[in-house]
């Protein structure tokens, strides 16, 4: 049996017992053994949500109306999102009894409370990981209500299992390795990020205005999962495996021995798991990330026309480059043009010539005639997507399926990358 951390937030003690038993039964069908924790009030639920950042729950079953005059399950949802303490949330509503909601959500008379609740819930938690499920109405006899509840929790377990297979897509993306592009003061242009080592792999996740890129480990996880057989079950835990099993067994030399390895390890990149070619490309990519600015500032320094803030920035870049600073300086000396006013085109050409341009060499391996066609792996990926969406729609989560589709369209469907040796895939 696979473990599953489940938090149930419910103020009704009788219902809590029923939920606990029904969740156990529902997840047992899919081979899970839930480790259940229960909470009965908003304050405790929020406290737990805040403290579970390091050990997030796989699923939180959250009642909306928790008997508090002012705080509701929606406030708990806020905390779960902010502290990333839940992978998936099943929001249990009983709209006809949720009298506090209209007050806390500021719902006007006559407004559709169900619609309002969904809008508020989706505004608080990523829609592709949020299930809004109605509890059986109190008027329904207990036996019938139990059956209904069991069915609904069964649907939750099924969706969890299906969406969990694609959990790697929604894993938190580490953006610490990205740099924000400076923008002129007062500019209303959307913020973007300088693309770093991830561009080397040409993976692009475009989530609205913020462009984020997964790190290399994320890419490897993705690649590992996509190469698996469709019929094989993938648990969320497996989906979060950073390295394929074969690579896990490889002995890892101590990073202290190699400052370059330590530098990349600190950024979450498993340096010693890369091939030598990959390592070289990564160094070039990391260098070129900051190289243009380094080169500019070093130019000012050489001309003795550098301001204090620019000098501080240069020092910061040198610090950040760490063991790569020496290589940057060598490249600067080599590339130092006699004429500083050379055109941007010339500059790019020089960089590309010296193999410092981001991802410059990657396009070489991509045949033009392959563009626009799905490889077998891509087809497999799409098939899995379809299966998840169908599962959601069949189980009455059409709106979630739509959110899911939109989300994937904005991320996976725009992929265009060159995978590692042995796998070719372009969409």
């Amino acid at each position, binding site marked *: 049996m696979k473990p599953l951390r489940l938090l149930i937030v419910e103020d009704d003690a009788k219902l809590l017992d029923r939920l606990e038993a029904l969740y156990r039964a529902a997840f047992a069908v899919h081979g899970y053994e839930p480790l259940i924790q229960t909470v009965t009030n908003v304050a405790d639920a929020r406290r737990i949500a805040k403290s579970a950042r390091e050990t997030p729950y796989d699923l939180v079953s959250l009642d909306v109306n928790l008997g508090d005059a002012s*705080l509701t399950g929606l406030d708990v949802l*806020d905390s779960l999102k*902010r502290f990333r303490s839940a992978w998936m949330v099943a929001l249990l509503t009983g709209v006809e009894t949720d009298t506090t909601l209209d007050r806390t959500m500021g719902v006007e008379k006559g407004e559709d409370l169900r619609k309002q609740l969904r809008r508020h819930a989706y505004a608080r938690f990523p829609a592709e990981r949020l299930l809004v499920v109605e509890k059986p109405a109190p008027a329904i006899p207990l036996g019938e209500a139990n059956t209904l509840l069991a069915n609904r929790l069964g649907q939750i377990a099924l969706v969890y299992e299906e969406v969990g297979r694609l959990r790697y897509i929604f894993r938190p993306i580490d953006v610490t390795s990205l740099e924000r592009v400076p923008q002129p003061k007062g500019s209303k242009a959307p913020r973007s990020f300088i693309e770093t080592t991830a561009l080397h792999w040409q993976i692009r996740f475009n989530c609205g205005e913020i462009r984020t890129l997964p790190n290399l480990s994320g890419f490897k996880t993705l690649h590992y999962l996509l190469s698996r057989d469709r019929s094989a079950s993938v648990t969320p835990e497996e989906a979060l495996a950073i390295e394929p099993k074969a690579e896990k067994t490889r002995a890892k030399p101590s990073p202290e021995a190699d400052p370059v390895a330590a530098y990349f390890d600190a950024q979450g990149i498993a340096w010693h798991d890369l091939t030598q070619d990959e390592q070289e490309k990564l160094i070039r990519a990391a260098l070129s990330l900051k190289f243009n600015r380094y080169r500019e500032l070093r130019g000012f320094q050489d001309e003795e026309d550098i301001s204090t803030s620019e000098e501080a920035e240069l020092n910061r870049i040198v610090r950040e480059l760490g063991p790569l600073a020496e290589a940057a300086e060598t490249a600067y000396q080599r590339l130092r043009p006699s004429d500083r006013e050379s055109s941007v085109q010339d500059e790019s050409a020089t960089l590309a010539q010296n193999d410092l341009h981001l991802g410059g060499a990657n396009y070489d391996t991509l045949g033009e005639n392959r563009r626009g066609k799905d490889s077998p792996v891509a087809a497999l990926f799409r098939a899995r997507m379809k299966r998840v969406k169908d599962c959601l729609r069949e189980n009455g989560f059409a709106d979630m399926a739509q959110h899911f589709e939109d989300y994937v369209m904005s991320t996976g469907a725009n992929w265009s990358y060159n995978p590692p040796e042995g796998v070719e895939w372009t969409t």
Partner: protein
Amino acid sequence: MVLTLIPDAWLSTPPQTLLVGDGPYASALAFVTGAAILAADDLLSGVEEPQEGGLPQVLGSLQRVVFVASASQSGADLLRCHRALWRWIEKLSPEGEQHEVAILFVLPDSSSASLEESLALGLGLKKFDPASGTEAARMGDPLESLLAAWAMICPTDLPTLRARQASDAARAALRKLRCQGGAAVNREAAREVLAIFAGREYQLDVFCRPPSHRHGNLLRGWLRSVVTDGVTPDSYKEGCRPSDWLVDFDEKR
């Protein structure tokens, strides 16, 4: 209004305790407690985003905030500072509005008990209570008792404060007044407000936009005209509404 730059010292040593205030008492208290100090005007100005973009999350470890009130500050002024503080925390703490902080108001000895009551009312409290996340003390209190009171405060976050305020009857009545209903609806809402604030109408100031006292006077006049005289006052005819004077309670909800 010129925005305030994040003090350089905060970048190297993120503050755990922040003292908001000016004057010798504030400086001395900051020195004794090792708190970072920020003038009330700077707090109200808002935080300036660095040119290179991105706000450093320097308030991530903030645990306590002390507002040292000056004799010239009214309850409405202090509550404005309180709202401004949360805007800083929302921007400068990775936990945003979920960041928990203990807040202490240190009031001048010369201030009346009504200031304390107004402050408590503005925060959705009947009276100050350490369990609510906010406490009040006087400048004349011995340092030991001040620090003891400080240590007793349970940190709370902004959603808790908002929820408490939302369930407050005074706010609920004023919210109705803000709604642009017909004259009859307004008259009913006005009656309710006057009933809640009977004998302490001065406290309406804390719910008014700056200049709070002037707007409070306009509101009191309007309420009296509508309820006592039973006629629509001139200001109402001219298009003035309580919503012009009252703060927006639903600003962030």
